[in-house]
C-alpha cells in the first residue's frame, strides 16, 4: 500500500468518525463502557415506593446489593449510576458488558433458593411466576415487582421509581429529562403528517405488536401507521391476507433468529405485491433493542426512524 492510498484511507476514517459524531448524540447508556457508579444519596431514606402489584415497599437505607432480574431494569440501574449496587442479574441482561462478571440467575424459571443465596437486599423482578415474590418476602428480602412497561411513559415512571428506591432520584430526573429531550428532537426532525404504513413481525407465523405494547408505542411516537392498530390488541397474530390487503410500506423483521430475512419475506406466497417488498423496504431489526424497555429505547427510536424515514437521514 503506497502513501497516497494510506492518506485517502486515513481521511475516510476521519470523515466517517466525524459523520458518526455529528449524527448521533452520545448515547444515554453505552454497553461497551459501563457508566461510572455514583454514591447513593442516603438523605431521603427511609423511602416508600409502590410496585406494580400495588404493594408499598419501604427501604430503610439505600440498597447496597441489588439483584436485577430483567435486562431493562439492569440497564436503567446502570444508567442511573447505581451499577455499583448491583450484585446479580438475570441471564438476559447483557448491557453494559460489565454485568457478565456478575452471578446470573434465570428470570423465567427462577428459584427462590438461588435468589436468596445471592445475599441481595433488594430484588427487582419483571414478572412473578408462582408466588415467587411472596416466597422471597418470607425469606426477609425486599422485592419490587415491576411489570414490563407497555409504553415509553411507563419506562419513565420505572426510571423515577428505581431512582428513588436506590438513592439516585436526581439522576433519575435527569435521565428522564434527557430521554424526553432526545425523543422530542427526533420527533421534530420527522416529516409532517402521517408516516408510512408499517408491519412489525415478531414471529414467522405473523405475530406482531399492536396498541398497548411497548413496541406499538414506539411506532406511534414515530407517527408510523402500524397495521396492527386495526386489531386493537397488544400482541395479535394477523391473517396473512389482512397483511397483504393492508399493504405495509415498511416491514420490520424482529425474527431474524427464526430464519426470516427480506428474501424469505419476498418468497412468501402472495407477498410479492406488497409495497414494502416491491420497494425493497423489508429490514431486519434487533429484537433485543426494539423491545427492551430501558434507557436505550432512544437508540431504538433512532434506529426505527432511520428505517421508516430514510430520506430524512441521508
Amino acid at each position, binding site marked *: 500500500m503506497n502513501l497516497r492510498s494510506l492518506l485517502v484511507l486515513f481521511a475516510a476514517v476521519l470523515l466517517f468518525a466525524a459523520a458518526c459524531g455529528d449524527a448521533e448524540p452520545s448515547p444515554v447508556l453505552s454497553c461497551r463502557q459501563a457508566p461510572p457508579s455514583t454514591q447513593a444519596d442516603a438523605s431521603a431514606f427511609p423511602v416508600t415506593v409502590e410496585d406494580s402489584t400495588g404493594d408499598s415497599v419501604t427501604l430503610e437505607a439505600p440498597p447496597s446489593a441489588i439483584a436485577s432480574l430483567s435486562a431493562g431494569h439492569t440497564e436503567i440501574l446502570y444508567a442511573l449510576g447505581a451499577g455499583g449496587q448491583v450484585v446479580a442479574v438475570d441471564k438476559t441482561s447483557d448491557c453494559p458488558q460489565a454485568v457478565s462478571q456478575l452471578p446470573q440467575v434465570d428470570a423465567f424459571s427462577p428459584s427462590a433458593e438461588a435468589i436468596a443465596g445471592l445475599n441481595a437486599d433488594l430484588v427487582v423482578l419483571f414478572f412473578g411466576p408462582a408466588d415467587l415474590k411472596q416466597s422471597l418476602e418470607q425469606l426477609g428480602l425486599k422485592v419490587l415487582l415491576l411489570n414490563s412497561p407497555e409504553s415509553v411513559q411507563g419506562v419513565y415512571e420505572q426510571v423515577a421509581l428505581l431512582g428513588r428506591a436506590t438513592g439516585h432520584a436526581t439522576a433519575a430526573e435527569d435521565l428522564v429529562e434527557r430521554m424526553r429531550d432526545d425523543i422530542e428532537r427526533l420527533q421534530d426532525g420527522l416529516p409532517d403528517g402521517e408516516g408510512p404504513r408499517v408491519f412489525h413481525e415478531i414471529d414467522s*407465523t405473523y405475530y406482531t405488536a399492536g396498541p398497548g405494547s411497548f413496541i406499538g408505542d414506539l411506532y406511534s411516537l414515530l407517527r408510523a401507521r402500524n397495521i396492527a392498530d386495526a386489531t386493537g390488541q397488544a400482541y*395479535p397474530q394477523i391473517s396473512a391476507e*389482512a397483511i397483504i390487503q393492508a399493504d405495509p410500506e415498511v416491514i420490520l423483521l424482529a425474527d431474524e*433468529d427464526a430464519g426470516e430475512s427480506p428474501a424469505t419475506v419476498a418468497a412468501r406466497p402472495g407477498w410479492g405485491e406488497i409495497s414494502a417488498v416491491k420497494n425493497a423496504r423489508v429490514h431486519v431489526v434487533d429484537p433485543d433493542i426494539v423491545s427492551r424497555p430501558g434507557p436505550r429505547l432512544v437508540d431504538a427510536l433512532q434506529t426505527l426512524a432511520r428505517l421508516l424515514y430514510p430520506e430524512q437521514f441521508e
Partner: protein
Amino acid sequence: MNILRRAEPLELPAPSVDLPAADLLALVRRPLWPRLLLGVAVLLAVALVALAVGPAGIPLDATVRILLSRLPGVDLADGLPRSWDDIIWQVRLPRVLLAGLVGATLAMSGATYQGVFRNPLAEPYLIGVATGAALGATIVVVSEASVSWHGLSLLPLAAFAGALSAVVLVYSVARVGGTVPSTTLILAGVAVASLFTAITAFLMLRTTTHTLSVFSVVLGGFNTASWPRLAWTLPYVLPATVVIMAHGRILNVLNLDEHQARQVGVDVERTKLLLLGAASLAAAAAVSVSGTIGFVGLIVPHTVRLLWGPDNRRLLPMSLLLGGAFLILADLVARTVDQPSEVPVGIITAFCGVPFFLFLLRRAKGAVY
C-alpha cells in the same frame, strides 16, 4: 391424554356388538351413495363459502371474477388490484384446501385408531404423533438452524420426523414377540407423550425468544398455508387414504373380536400394523403443516357414528368428508371472528365442536350408542 389415563376400561366392546343382528343387517344394506353425495355437497359448499369470506373484505363478485379468470379464454379480472388475485390464489385457496385436507386426514385417522384399538377414546394423537411433531418443531426452532432445506421449510420436515420417531418408539416398546397388545401400545403412547411434552416444555423454557413459534405449533393454525405445503402432505395422505378406505370391511371384523377375525382368516397383527402405520403417517404429515389441532380426530368420527351408525365402510369415508368440512369451517371462524387477528384454530374446534357433540350425545342417549 389425562382422560385416557383415567378411563378404566381400555378395551370397550365396539358399539356394534350390542346391536341385534337384524338391525345390523339393515344398517349394512342401506346404500352408501346418497350419504356420500351429501358429504361431498357439504364439503364443497363449506369450501366455497370459506373461499369467498375473509378479513381482506374482497367483494363476492370480484372473488368470482378472479376465480373464473384462470379459466382459459376468460378474462374478467381487469381493473381489480393485483393483490386481490394474490390473496385468493396464493393465500386463501391453499389455506382452505390445506384445512380441508388436514381435517379429513385427522378424522379418518381418528376413525381408524378407534377401530383398531376398539377404544372410543382413541384419537390420532394417541401413540405420540402430536407430541413427537411438537418436539421435532421445537428442536428446530430452538436450535436456530437455517429454516429451509431444498426450498422446503425445515419446520414441517422436523415435525414430521418427530411424529414418526415417536410412533416408531412407542410401537417398538410395545411389541411383544410378533404381537402388539393394544393396552401396552396405548400405555407406551401415553408414557412417551409425557416424556416428549416434558422435553418440549424444558426447551421452551430455555429459550425465551421463540416461545411464540413453539406456541403456534402446539396450538395449530393455517396462517402460513401455501401450495408447497399442500403438495408436501399429499404423497403421504393419498396412499394412506387408499389403504384405509380399502380396509373398512376388515375393520368391521376386527371390531367384533380378534379371535373371530383370526378364524375367518384375517392376519390381525399385519392388518393392525398396516392400518396404524397408514393412519399415523397421514396424521404426521397433517400435523407437520398445521400444528397439533385437537378434537377433530376424536369428535368427527363419533359424530358420524351417532348420525349414521358404526359400520366402518360408511364411517371412514363420511369421517373423511365431514372432517374436511368441519376444519374448513373452524378455520373460517378462526380468521374472521376477530379479524384481522387470528384466533388459534384449535380453540375454535373445541369451542364449536364440543357443544355440538354433547348435543348429539344427549340426543342419542339410550339409542344406538
